[in-house]
């Protein structure tokens, strides 16, 4: 995975709470066996009308938001299903950062594995950014080394991230490779682990 240090991009505001992964990528697009190509289906039922034409009222379809790479949204983003396809779709569409006042746990884990940066800001700060982004294209810089979000208009806000998640993103860690370095400990654990007869099918 590519290490992430900083990113500067246009903010797309999506003023909703509890956006679930069924909305981010509906079930009909989960039948593919690849990791790529999900961007066209991102927010499918919100982005497109039932006749297939773009829904002009949906935030991401606004001309100002078409180049956005930072998604700004309400609390508990990514709740519901564990489908990693939701993160693949956001990445494939072009998002590098999602800012929300909170994230669902499995979704946040999935973000880290794919270099999508989940930034938690207080609901007040999210609201302040929503107002700025609604007023015109807002370019925001996310600096993960400094843990700082800054805009050209003077907005500046530090954020916190779990040290494990931050390190994975900054270093682009191959987690499986890192865990396999603990192979001796895994083997030692296996040698002493509690079992009650082998399971045979």
């Amino acid at each position, binding site marked *: 995975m590519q290490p992430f240090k900083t990113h500067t991009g246009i903010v797309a505001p999506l003023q*909703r*709470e*509890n956006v*679930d992964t*069924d*909305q981010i990528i*509906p*079930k*009909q697009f*989960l*039948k*593919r*066996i*690849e*990791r790529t190509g999900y961007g066209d289906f991102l927010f499918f*039922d919100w982005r497109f009308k*039932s006749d297939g034409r773009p829904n002009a009222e949906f935030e991401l379809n606004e001309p100002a938001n078409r180049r956005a790479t930072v998604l700004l949204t*309400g*609390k*508990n983003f990514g*709740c*519901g*299903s*564990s*489908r*990693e396809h939701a*993160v693949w779709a956001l990445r494939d569409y072009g998002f590098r950062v999602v800012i929300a006042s*909170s994230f*669902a*746990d*499995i979704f946040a*884990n*999935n973000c880290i*594995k*794919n270099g999508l940066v989940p930034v938690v800001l207080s609901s007040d700060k999210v609201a302040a950014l929503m107002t700025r982004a609604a007023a015109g294209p807002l370019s925001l810089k996310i600096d993960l080394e400094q843990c700082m979000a800054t805009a050209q208009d003077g907005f500046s806000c530090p954020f916190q991230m*779990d*040290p*494990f*998640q931050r*390190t994975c993103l900054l270093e682009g860690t191959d*987690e*499986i490779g*890192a*865990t*396999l370095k*603990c192979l001796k*400990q*895994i083997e030692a*654990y*296996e040698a002493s*682990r*509690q079992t*009650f*007869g*082998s*399971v*045979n*099918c």
Partner: protein
Amino acid sequence: MRPRSLFEKIWNNHTVAADLNGADLLYIDLHLLHEVTSPQAFEGLRQAGRKLRRPDLTFATLDHNVPTSTNRMIINDVLASSQVEALRRNCAEFGVPLFDLDSPDQGIVHVIGPELGLTQPGMTIVCGDSHTSTHGAFGALAFGIGTSEVEHVMATQCLLQKKPRTMLVNFTSKLGPGVTAKDLILALIAKIGVDGAAGHAIEYAGDTIRALSMESRMTICNMSIEAGARAGMIAPDEITFSYLKDRRLAPSGKQWDPAKSYWHEHGSDPGATFDKTVEFDSASLAPFVTWGTNPAMAAPVTECVPYPEKAANESSRNSMARALEYMGLRPGTPMEEIAIDRVFIGSCTNARLEDIRAAARVIKGYRISNRVQAMVVPGSQKVKHAAEQEGLNRVFQEAGFEWREPGCSMCLGMNPDRLNPQERCASTSNRNFEGRQGAGGRTHLVSPAMAAAAAITGRFTDIRAWHYKD
């Protein structure tokens, strides 16, 4: 020694390496796979030239996208079929036992794990599915993971995890007649919110829980994720042990007694502390029905659709107004006046034998409403077979229900079982998100008995006043 919670005991017992940059490396005792979230993980393993570390601790089934029609060995949906084929090929290549469509053990992954005796107290269990929390009903630490984590477990049999905080939910008093585990968990989620348990592992305790069957306990743990919880768990007791006795893949013979005493250690010690505690009196609980587009948007069947203007703040007001518009509901409408088009009895939440029996008891001697189309999708082949042995399939069919083959079905509509736009469904599943059961479909979550009663009357009906004809 300091008193420890059930969660802490399992976490500590499974820590292979502590505090790697703030995360612990946990050993995983049981890894369950299905066709939708595993193909990319197998492919990743293959590309990196890695082996599946413990095929003996890995089991797979087909459930999410499979048709539930009788003749389903040929799947017409090309993409679904290729996903099914991919799982078959992957399981053959990596040596994973697969409960295929023709297996008497096939079923929804969270129904068959317990049924086979794979799910046991004290274990760590993962699956690429958020409803893995179901297995916590046995006193296991069980949680859903994404596909990258599935690949991680395949390669290492371990997961790097940040330790969640703990929450105790204490349910006290006896449930009234007709009030079920489903109502209990819906009421809890309505109380604490869809993110009320985010970042936490919940332990459900109290005399209400102790009186519940394993199947009801599974319903409760299943929906922990709908409150945002990382996991939900219940300390094992005699009810747990007698459920496990003689299950095919559970310890048996000389292994049984040592296993049972090991399991016995898995309860929270008196005085164990939790980061959060919620007290819930179950005595006056009424059956619950959801009215909105997330599981916390729920109310007792005796109440009315709420008014958004009475919401606590602007953002909830907007969410409620949006939800009611999607659901096509007017504030102030009594829940019992909401007419439905479809009924779905199924899913990993409520498609075990106890659920099927409860629904059958309600409909016995009745016909479903002319305006309703209704289906029962048993959670597994074993559930289906056991219900058929009791003649319950005939009860449903005589009432006008379809009796189908096991799978996830219309809980998420990946297979052909779907709602049409604007169709309103009383569903025993776990999510009422927009479009969950089909684009534009309107889902109301209820218990199996409430779904059955709605099928008969064509609207939500308080099951506590039901006239049973058995």
